[in-house]
């Protein structure tokens, strides 16, 4: 995977995750291109687009567009599932997630994404494990210092 973008129907960016190193200007250009391309698509068209040498998979959930760019040898149908899985994770965390949740708690959206994907690949395929990790990290955040005895954990999930 190359990048993941979330933007609203008006083209406002809500989340951006880049899996390869790019300059700021390139990123801005890609965001512009993606939003224009995806927002111009008609309602009943395919969820797949070709853009330069990448395949773009996008899906609209309520007022948000999720746009994922993968390389040509990757499986697009699975990419749709990846997007769906992320939405499910957000939904479980926020409880009936809506765009406002992602706007006001964008850092949480990133934290969840970082438990699900890493370095452009899927990190964890189990929903429950991702959810438990997020909850545990949030709990840890409440404590003042990280080497406090009550939060030491050994066995992972």
């Amino acid at each position, binding site marked *: 995977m190359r990048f993941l973008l979330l933007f609203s129907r008006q083209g406002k960016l809500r989340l951006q995750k880049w899996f390869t190193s790019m300059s700021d200007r390139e990123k*801005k250009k890609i965001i512009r291109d993606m939003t224009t391309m995806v927002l111009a698509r008609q309602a009943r068209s395919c969820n797949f687009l070709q853009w330069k040498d990448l395949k773009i998979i996008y899906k609209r959930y309520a007022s948000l567009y999720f746009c994922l760019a993968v390389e040509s040898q990757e499986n697009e149908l699975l990419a*749709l599932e990846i997007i769906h899985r992320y939405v499910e994770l957000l939904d479980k965390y926020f409880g009936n997630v809506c765009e406002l949740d992602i706007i006001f708690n964008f850092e949480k959206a990133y934290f969840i994404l970082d438990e699900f994907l890493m370095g452009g690949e899927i990190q964890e395929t189990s929903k429950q494990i991702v959810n438990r*990790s997020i909850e545990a990290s949030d709990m840890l955040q409440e404590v003042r210092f*990280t080497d406090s005895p009550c939060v030491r954990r050994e066995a992972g999930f």
Partner: protein
Amino acid sequence: MSPSVPLQEMIRAIRSARTQCEERGVIQRECATIRAQFRQADNEGRSHNLAKLLYVHMLGYPAHFGQMECVRMIASPRYSEKRVGYLGAMMLLDEKQDASLLITNSIKNDLANSNQYVQSLALCTLACMGSAEMCRDLAPEINRLLRASNSYIKKKAALCAVHIVRKVQDLGELFAPSARCLLTEKNHGVLHGAVVLITELCECNPESLERFRKTVPDLVQIMKGLVISGYSPDHDVAGISDPFLQVRILRLLRILGHNNEAASDAMNDLLAQVATNTDSTKTVGNAVLYETVLTVLDIKSESGLRVLAVNILGRFLLNNDRNIRLVVSQNILTSAATTQKQRISLCIQLYFSFPIPPSRALELSLALVSASNIRSMMKELLSFLSSCPPELRSQTASGIFIAAERYAPSQRWHIDTILHVLTTAGGDVRDETVPNLIQLITNTSELHCYTVHKLYRALHNDISQQPLVQVACWCIGEYGDLLLRGECQEMEPVQVTEDDVLDVLEAVLQSHMSSPSTRGFALTATMKLSTRITENVDRIRSIVSIYGSCIDVELQQRAVEYNALFKKYDHMRAAVLERMPVIEKNSQGHTNGDSTGETIKENLAVKVKQAEPQQAANQVCDLLDLLGGSEPPLQSSPALGSTAPLPVGTAGTAGGDLLDLLGGLEPTAIMPVSVYDKDGVTVTLSCEKQSDSGLSITLTASNSTDSDIRGFTLQAAVPKSVQLHMKAPSGDSLPARGAAKVTQMVVLNNPNKVVNLKMRLRISYTSQGSAVQDTVQVDSFPGLGH
């Protein structure tokens, strides 16, 4: 988890700004506050401030002053600050920034932290923006974590290793042993990470690929476990157990099995199992099936398995979900799956009604046409022609003609198809179609009657499609007698009177829709009919004389000449207007339908558009037999490339341009060599190499006897793989005593670089009232070095 109140207040403030200007104002004020607070040494709300800055950054405003703050926050002992700090590092720092190096030490420390969530932050950040130096620095640490930690960390370490290998390929060696061990884990996250890591190692290093082939049995085992296991709530997605892991394993199996018999055998059963057991009602099942099919087609699988895979692809094409149809169609056009095109084509009939771009559908179906499916495919193509967007009609018509020429199962079918195209899309066909079709018609003598009847009917219905009208007029002119005779083997008889025919031709002549060249056809046809009909010759005479004062110069000239034919040269009229001989195509032709009795060798690598069809001209046929071959097999000549989708090459000189594509090298002139010298007639040959595989030969004939020679013709034949094109000779009479010569150019194309190029020449002429015919073989070509 308490949300950051200051952050949310700021977000609210920004969102409530009514104009862009107001928003900028709010943001500037906030940034000023944040900057001031960053400068203070210790601060309670540090993480909130950085989070605010990250939000502002996402809106597109500059935030580089936050970079150092990120570095500081990462080093903080508080988890909340570390978390936001690392997030900031991933958003604001990338490997090109100098500040990124500063966090290397923090990452190293955090990797050794006793708390796995802290470790995870470090791993995640390294995998996201680690530069090559950072990766080199920290690789041993990552390797240690790969081996000895809990599964939560192992899975993250595996993906971190993937990033490191992508950045610094040499480090792949370091991780290979650990990667192998990870395959024994039970945890799906770790397994997934391991498979991704192994895939990456195999892709960048062929030696690793060899070594990892040994893992195929393990992978097969894991996959089997996933496919046949019962419901596992942890990993289930719509009834499929961990589709993400399944797809990754399939992809790795594809890489390992590619070009390797043993590995492919080992995974054969598994792939069959996955292909048959996976539920294809939901997207997720189809994702797995699709990956399976790609794998089957890419490894050395058994034929039974390949059939299964192709059938699945076929079902995909009929699926209601347009995503699947699009993905599969793209794949078929570009990948190895095209080798099974015969079977896939069975599904194409439903394809056209789906909303994939019509140009894609056309490309696809033309690529999939073959001898076995030509009839059904043509039905689809013809219906597509009537409904496709106008900009595609010309391309479709050309594609249909090429496909019809290549695979026509019978001549009647071929003619019918062409007629259909002319009636549906006559205005969009290319100009070469008319002479090509005429040539095709003259060659199928048994169908002359049928053809002319059909054309007459078509013409009767519609005289607006110019190519159709031209062909029809020509045929009516040539075969009008068959038309008037009424009976026809292939169709129900229809009574056509001479008046009817002349009415139609006159309508064409007078119609404002007819182009000048069409009128020319019609006039000539009318004239020809004067020898084929019995009663209405006067009517023809009057038609012709009317056009003697036509404004169009060409028509006027013709009409005047025909008039003269009636008046002064009436005795010659019958001879001039008699049935034309079969037009020989002295250029790249094509094998006609009835020679497809033998198997057609499919040229898999060449798309239909680029095919250069070949034909043995009738006269040259027997010469070729002498050289020891039957009809030349269907060939394409990649060397010739393609600029036009239709075969260029009409009777005569136009075809020569095709071979000029080979030009470019300066031809070197060589001394002519005598190849035939008998009874006072000599033929000399000189050749010039035009290019790597092209040769241009000039044959010069002269007559040293005392009597003139008439009707001098040369014919040539070459070995099977060589292409021959004879240009028109300068003349056909050789006056006595070498008063003048006849020259003829012959162009050869030798793409297969046949050594010992030979050519057989047949020389025929009439001298002193008797016909002479002789054959000579040319074994060596001067200047070629053979």
